[in-house]
């Protein structure tokens, strides 16, 4: 419990730091919000009027505190750029709520791919005594890890999209329209995300298992007359999975926070792309919230992993 509170305080402090940093960044970032909105033709009076409407004429500290109070009250503010209707700007919450499922589903599909492929692969690899398999997997995973995600995205597009025509590049369908089609399309970007991570996870699991296999308790298990299989699945796997859980947590955090590059390559309207476009249009309320969201997700996932770790590893749970 005390640990929990401590973690929570750390989380809040980090969020605070990040929000201040993001806020500050937008004070010094070149490119005026008002110019960006009004373009080149507006009169100075109009600019001043908008500045006032947006509250930009107030001192930064006051603006920051107003904004923080609003956010704490659950009001995430409104986009400068996107309108919901003529009288209303798009609330940031709604805007992000719209994009978030794309990123989350992408993360989910990637994660399923990673877990479903990497874990059996890692176990197989650790169990295998075949030098050939070992060498092949070694090379394949090394190469997979060396491919940058955008290049992988391009290769996947080229191979599965253009050559094999498994999917039509750019034929993203909104999840609201056709969920099946949406998932089918997500498979390929998810694959591009997953491949290097599968390689990393499988390697990691294998090394973890090999390390665990050196542990004394494995010898004890054998001394009881356990079969190799029983030792592997009854004793080693669970213990070897623990560091892998942390590792997977890092991966989850990374994907859930937005796979900007992959979203760019495959034209997915997720939060990564929203962030990029919002930065370039100086849509400050959106950017601030997105940055906070991402920070929150990352820290929160780490936190969850930490908790999970405590649940599955009895050694830590009492600390």
């Amino acid at each position, binding site marked *: 419990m*005390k640990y929990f509170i401590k973690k929570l305080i750390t989380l809040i402090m980090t969020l605070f730091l990040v929000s201040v940093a993001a806020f500050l960044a937008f004070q010094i970032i070149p490119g005026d919000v008002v110019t960006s909105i009004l373009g080149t033709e507006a009169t100075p009076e109009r600019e001043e009027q908008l500045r006032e409407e947006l509250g930009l004429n107030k001192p930064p500290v006051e603006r920051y505190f107003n904004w923080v109070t609003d956010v704490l009250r659950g009001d995430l503010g409104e986009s400068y750029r996107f309108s919901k209707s003529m009288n209303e700007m798009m609330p940031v919450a709604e805007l992000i709520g719209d994009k978030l499922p794309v990123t989350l589903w992408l993360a989910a599909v990637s994660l399923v791919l990673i877990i479903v492929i990497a874990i059996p692969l890692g176990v197989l690899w650790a169990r295998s005594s075949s030098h050939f398999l070992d060498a092949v997997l070694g090379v394949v995973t090394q190469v997979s890890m060396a491919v940058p995600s955008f290049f992988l995205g391009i290769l996947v597009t080229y191979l599965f999209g253009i050559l094999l025509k498994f999917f039509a590049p750019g034929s993203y369908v909104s999840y609201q329209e056709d969920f099946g089609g949406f998932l089918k399309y997500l498979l390929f970007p998810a694959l591009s995300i997953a491949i290097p991570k599968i390689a990393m996870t499988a390697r990691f699991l294998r090394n973890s298992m090999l390390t665990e296999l050196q542990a004394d*308790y494995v010898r004890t298990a054998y001394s*009881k*007359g356990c079969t190799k299989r029983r030792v592997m699945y009854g004793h080693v796997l669970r213990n070897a999975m623990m560091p892998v859980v942390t590792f997977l947590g890092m991966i989850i955090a990374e994907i859930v926070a937005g796979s900007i590059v992959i979203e760019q390559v495959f034209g997915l309207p997720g939060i990564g792309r929203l962030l990029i476009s919002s930065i370039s249009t100086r849509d400050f309320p959106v950017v601030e919230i997105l940055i906070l969201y991402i920070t929150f997700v990352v820290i929160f996932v780490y936190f969850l992993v930490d908790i999970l770790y405590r649940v599955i590893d009895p050694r830590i749970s009492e600390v």
Partner: protein
Amino acid sequence: MGRRDSPVSPAPVFCKLRKVRGMQECRMSGRMEDIMIRIEDLSVAFGDTEAVKHVNLELIDGEVLGVVGESGSGKSVTALTLMGLVADSAQVTSGRVLFDDVVLREAGKPCDKALYRQYQGARMSMVFQEPMTSLNPTQRVGKQVEEMLRLHTELRGEDRKQKVLEAFRSVGLREVEKVYSCYPHQLSGGMRQRVMIAMAVILHPRLIVADEPTTALDVTIQNQIIELLREINQKQNNAMLFITHDLNLARRLCNRIAVMKDGEVVELGETEEIFQNPREAYTKRLIEAVPSRVKRRRNAAAESGMGEPAGSGPDGKIPAGGEAAEKAGTEQEECAVQGWNTGREQGAGLERSAGQEKSAGLQECAVQGYRKPILRVRNLSVYYKDGDNSLFSRRKKQCVVFGAEFELYPGESLGLVGESGCGKTSLSKAILGMNREVEGEIVHTTLRPQMIFQDPYSSLNPTKTIGWQLMEPLRARAALDQAFAMTREEMETAAYDMLHKVGMEDKYFHRKPSQLSGGQRQRVSIGQALITHPGMIVADEPVSALDVTIQAQIMELMQKLQQEMHLSYLFISHDINVVYRMCDRIMVMKDGRIIESGETEEIFNHPREAYTKMLLGA
């Protein structure tokens, strides 16, 4: 030394030694089936290096056979090969292992794991050295013991659990239900080892292999476990292969002892026979090396006064005691010139180095107020701070040493004895100023007392050469005080001198610690501590990580240097015998308090506290 038994005729040796149990008759009449375990001419190699060479061992029901040897002697590999647990990379290059005439393992054939599984657990089981790591850290211990039943019996859920609880009770565990659902880390070391033993004996196997089962435990717990093993052996009448580096332990438990060295069995015989009449030089040395109360005075006198050779270990030359005594005088003068000691202290040192009964002399001095203590500790309490340096959590202070009071006199060795966690290390750190959370008074007259640590592997900076490390204290001293400025040549000369003094050759000057053995590293550590002539040394378990023969050498070295350089030692150890050999006076510490202190002989002969008695009994 280094006798190699002919692989075909090991029998004569056995026959001679086995009369007590009537083994000879058995073998003569050809009733081979009574011999349960037979290891015949076993050699095990890892790649090109043979770890076990032509070993022959036999065991019958109810017998406890000790296998004694120092690290690397091949005793564990032998046991693991017997159990079918040796790594796949190990090859049996000769001989075979039989269990009731069934060949379990044979030279040139891979390990038949399916065959072994019929024996492992059910008919032979093993107790390992580290109960913490030998238990699966993420499984409840009850389940782990129960796995034995799952694998080898038809018992069902609740029956299995009852059987496990019963086994727990039989190994002296209390609150067995609670223990059943504990994870290994929630148990104490002793309890864990009891769980391991329960696991080993639950199916009443005919053979139990115990590989250093008490080494990782405190002395008092050690005793209990030994008693438990003895008890089980008597109750269940199973044979036991007891592997240890500790001759004393073997002596207490075993019917017969096999002494191993460099992969070979160099001597095998009835326990008492071996102790009384060791035939091999190595066995003799092993017995000699064990610090024993019986031998202490005689040895000390012999080494320092009578010039009896102390035996030469692999580390090479150690100047014999006589020479040391001769040199002592000049050394003392040097010290005096450098202003480290007073004239009177010098006198005391010389007096002692003449080989007289020193503690008496010192006691006398102290009583007379003849000498000033080099260290005085008054009402010292030491606190331990929670390591967490977060801003949020208030630091909790925990008292680990309560009101310690004592003095250390020049040239004296003061022993500090206690089990792990009693506060002896905290006390020593406080004295050296490494822990500033203290209350009370510490006064020492030396400039910079130095320390020698237990682990020779972490005591030296792995990236620096030995020469550099020996010179570093001189550089540091010069940086602090211009008066001690030395040229590089002078430093090098001093470093070489020190290297010689700790019994090492010039060539080591340019080597790094990774190229040195444990004993050699400890020598360098000692040399590094002494190069600035600190006068007082705190030695925290300086020999407990070393093999017994090396232990003896290091202790000799420390005693020699003490005389030569007129040093005071605060000698910390859990090993009562080591302390006995090294120290003039002893303090016994328990739960942060010094509960008893006095002259060594006095404590040993007339312990006042029950705890001290228990320690001595171990």
